[in-house]
């Protein structure tokens, strides 16, 4: 599964994207798995309310299932316009 990061999430984790081998059932499961991995992930995911997630480039929820998903993106609330 391709996992991509943007803005301060990218900076905190230290990379723009990575391939993750996971059996996580939901986004929340994936976050728990990554956070357990290293401190920089735990720091980035510390406050999930400050984050947004997109599955295959569509905004989604943290309890959404990951079955069939190829790309998960984590980022802060958008500030376009």
């Amino acid at each position, binding site marked *: 599964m391709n996992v*991509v990061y*943007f*803005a*301060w999430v*990218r900076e905190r984790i230290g990379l723009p994207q990575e391939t993750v081998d996971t059996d996580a059932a939901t986004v929340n499961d994936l976050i728990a798995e990554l956070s357990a991995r290293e401190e920089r992930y735990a720091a980035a995911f510390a406050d999930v309310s400050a984050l947004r997630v*997109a599955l295959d*480039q*569509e*905004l989604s929820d943290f309890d959404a299932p990951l079955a069939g998903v190829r790309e998960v*993106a984590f*980022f*802060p*609330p*958008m*500030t*376009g*316009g």
Partner: protein
Amino acid sequence: MSVRVQSEAFDTGAELNSFAQDRTDIGAVVSFTGVVRDTKGDLQEMLIEHYPGMTESAITKIAREAMQRWALADVLVIHRYGPLKPGEPIMMVATASAHRAAAFEAADFLMDYLKSRAPFWKKEVTHEGGSWVDAKDADEDALKRW
């Protein structure tokens, strides 16, 4: 309907002039231009990060919804990414309609949605370093108007 996501600068006036040009079925054109604002007079540049692919599809979805909700003759959205200087246009939207209410409302709607639903993130860079612009509660609240 035209949606462009680009790093290159664009000419707001030229875009407005070519938008809905030579049409005689429209009576109202509204444009919005977002400009890099130097709030404290210390901004070196504004860095705009985006999510390639999702950006285009998210904007296209928002523009299609506007076309469905209002009687619009045409919609234009241009949004830049990369480093921008104070005073430079970041993005623009334009709407064309027979009557002014539809053109105004649709442009306002497009801006509210682009602001909070299109995957762009702004970082302000000064001599002190860089800082990500925080999303405002007011921007999220603005979506409830529609």
